[in-house]
């Protein structure tokens, strides 16, 4: 019998790879200088404190070395990156007012349809600026704020000044310092005390310009007892030059509040995705991270949770799919600072055709975190021996009254499991398809329905015979 490998098809990117010609209204020159930073700030009519923060971030960026760990970043040349590209429009709250070519882009990505059918609010960013933002009126009347960051800087200045880049300071690492200097766009969400949103908000980030960077900032405050689900989607067409994404997400989850933050990242394979996300969770609050990483050439992404209040909780559910030419370094961080805090990490990855999937995590239990519980499970599926799958966790436990567990598994599809299913009447192909679908199912079931369907389509199986 001919020994053929199971083929897991590449993610079909046709839906994301279309591109518009560059019709930007304005763009800065390539590279990163104080003049360019000041130019971006001036374009946005920002208050002086924001320009000061930008320039301080630039100083930090210039003195911070490149990371001495993780995937290679040598091909990133900031002198070749355009950090600000303004589309040829202002922000609108009606799709009919958005220029046709931009509206068409988001139509093809299904965003307006999703807004009509299943979302409480939508933000759409095209290159460096948000071009559309809208929220259902009944939510606005309850005091929910969902707008772009530039508007938030003007209209909610005190809140933004207090919280912006305080949870993720520019000193954190080189690329968040870069972000602090040239950030543009992103979303601001404020959910007042006790308000519960039954349907999600969604921001979609589209980078169209070749050789450009996207540096959106997302700041969410969920007040006491409130509840919200925020969805973030990202994509870009493929070019032959490197694009850079260095966004930053800061989430404040107050006492008893719940925030679910879902991301489906499907950047094109010329994208370097160096993103930073962090949540501060107060007493009995909950942060739920759902993270799907499918695109990009290189990704470094580790959503982190700081469990500050007693009983605070975090869950991370992530899947990474690394195909040819991709080096996807993903995972999670959790810091337990208070008693009876709990965290779970569930991560799965598939690597194929020479793709590299790395799971990296850090769980810290500080002495005050008595009664803390943390559990991590990481599973990696290797589809061939050209690919790589590495697991690099760190656990730092400083409390003897903590319950910590960590499990990791790496391997291919089990012959025994295939054999068992075949004895129950399934063909070999059906058995393997079932196993791979079962492998991603714990993640898929946590996604909103339309994303789960999307992911199933992304990870379509083409089975031709045995694995070997």
């Amino acid at each position, binding site marked *: 019998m001919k020994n053929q490998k199971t083929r897991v098809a590449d993610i079909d990117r046709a839906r994301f790879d279309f591109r518009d010609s560059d019709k930007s209204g304005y763009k800065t020159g390539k590279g990163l200088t104080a003049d360019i930073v000041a130019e971006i700030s001036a374009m946005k009519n920002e208050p002086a404190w924001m320009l000061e923060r930008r320039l301080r971030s630039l100083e930090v960026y210039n003195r911070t070395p490149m990371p001495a*760990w993780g995937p290679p970043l040598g091909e990133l040349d900031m002198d070749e990156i355009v950090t600000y590209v303004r589309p040829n429009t202002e922000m609108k709250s009606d799709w009919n007012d958005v220029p046709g070519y931009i509206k068409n882009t988001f139509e093809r990505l299904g965003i307006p349809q999703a807004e009509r059918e299943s979302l409480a609010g939508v933000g759409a960013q095209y290159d460096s600026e948000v071009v559309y933002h809208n929220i259902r009126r009944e939510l606005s009347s309850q005091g929910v704020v969902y707008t772009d960051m530039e508007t938030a800087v003007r209209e909610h200045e005190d809140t933004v000044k207090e919280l912006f880049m305080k949870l993720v300071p520019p000193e954190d690492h080189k690329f968040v310092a870069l972000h602090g200097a040239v950030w543009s766009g992103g979303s601001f969400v404020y959910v007042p005390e006790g308000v519960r949103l039954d349907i999600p908000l969604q921001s979609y980030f589209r980078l169209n310009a070749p050789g450009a960077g996207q540096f959106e900032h997302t700041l969410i405050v969920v007040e006491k007892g409130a509840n919200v689900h925020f969805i973030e989607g990202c994509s870009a067409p493929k070019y032959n030059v490197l694009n850079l994404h260095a966004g930053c997400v800061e989430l404040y989850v107050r006492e008893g509040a719940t925030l679910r933050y879902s991301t489906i990242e499907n950047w094109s394979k010329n994208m370097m995705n160096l993103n930073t996300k962090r949540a501060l969770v107060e007493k009995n609050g909950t942060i739920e991270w759902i993270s799907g990483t499918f695109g990009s050439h290189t990704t470094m992404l580790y959503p982190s949770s700081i469990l500050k209040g007693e009983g605070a909780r975090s869950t991370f559910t992530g899947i990474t799919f690394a195909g040819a030419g991709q080096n996807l370094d993903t995972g999670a961080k959790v810091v337990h600072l208070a008693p009876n805090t709990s965290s779970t990490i569930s991560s799965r990855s598939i690597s194929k055709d020479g793709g590299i999937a790395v799971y990296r995590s850090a769980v810290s239990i500080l002495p005050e975190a008595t009664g803390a519980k943390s559990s991590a499970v990481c599973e990696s599926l290797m589809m061939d021996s050209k690919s790589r*799958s590495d697991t690099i966790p760190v*656990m*730092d436990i400083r409390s*003897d009254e903590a319950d910590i567990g960590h499990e990791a598994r790496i391997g291919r599809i089990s012959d025994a499991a295939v054999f068992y299913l075949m004895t129950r009447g399934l063909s070999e192909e059906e058995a393997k398809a079932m196993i791979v679908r079962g492998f991603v199912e714990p993640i898929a079931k946590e996604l909103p329905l339309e994303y789960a369907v999307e992911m199933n389509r992304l990870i379509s199986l083409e089975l031709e015979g045995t694995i070997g």
Partner: protein
Amino acid sequence: MSQFETMLGRMPVRTWSRPRVNDAGLVLREPDDVSLAGGADIRASGQIIIKQSYDRTAFGEDLTGPFVPEGLRVFIEENTNRRHLIRIPKGYAEREPIVLTLHLGMESPVLVDDVVIEAEEDASAVVILKYTSDDGTRVQHFGRTRVIVRRNARVQLVKLQMLPNDAAHTDAVGGVAQAGARLDVILAELGAARPLSSCNLILEGDGANAELDVVYLGDGERSLDMSYRAEHRGRKTVSGIYAKGILMDRSKKIFRDTLDFKSGASGSKGREEENVLMLGRDVRNISVPLLLCGEDNVEGEHAASSGRPDEKVLFYLMSRGLGELEAKKLLAQAAVSSIVEKIPEASVRNEILGAVRRSIGKGGAKA
């Protein structure tokens, strides 16, 4: 006597800087006398070849892998004052353990030892290396042990480190198992102020087996730094890294274990497991279990757990008439017993269990 500081890379693959697990600082101190100091106390049968030179041994590569950088390697080779080759001849099975005791004292406070164990084809032996010292002499030990296990041979290496709490101890083990061979290493890190311990096992030949068992004890202010790795190269190789640790008082430990499956190691399996008994509120317990995989047809697993003694078990033992201290001693002994029982020499087993009991008596009672 001169000394200098250096940094050792402790991770096969680096990670974030903030947890401070990538590197460890090391102070190297040259011994006054690099000539061979005295006769070593070696217990072995007449069949075993014991030399103080290993010039004719073909290593092929540095078996200690990523844990002994060039600077440390040169230091050891230029400053060795104990050098031993232990060769087990082809087809010969040594019945009793070969025991090499290295004692540090006032007259030889700095020991730099370089030991090579070579088991020729189809040979088998147990080799025990013991490092001991008089209290109050502030001794320093830097050592390298390399083990070559040729086709179908078997070696069990036991290293027992019981240096005083003010001693410096840096130790690197490197081993290679050829086709069908089996290499088992047991490390007992029970003493010294800041033990820096590493072990790199290469499963080179098809069907090779290698297992590393580690018992460590953190008491007082001890800070343990451990880096262990099993590298699968051959097909159908099997490895295991198992650790049982006890932490109390204000001790700290970093335990890094890595299973590294290279492309071509088809059909191989590896498992790493660490269990830590925490007996103090001020301890720090850092674990870094890595799985590195460049081959699809493998199975790699890791599991780690840590926590205090089970209150129900403690209560049961006390209800049977044991005092709290004695109950804790019993639980601590039980925590390490699955590894200790693998050591064939009763005196070594008793030394390890005795050290555990004494530590609990000193500090664990407060836990």
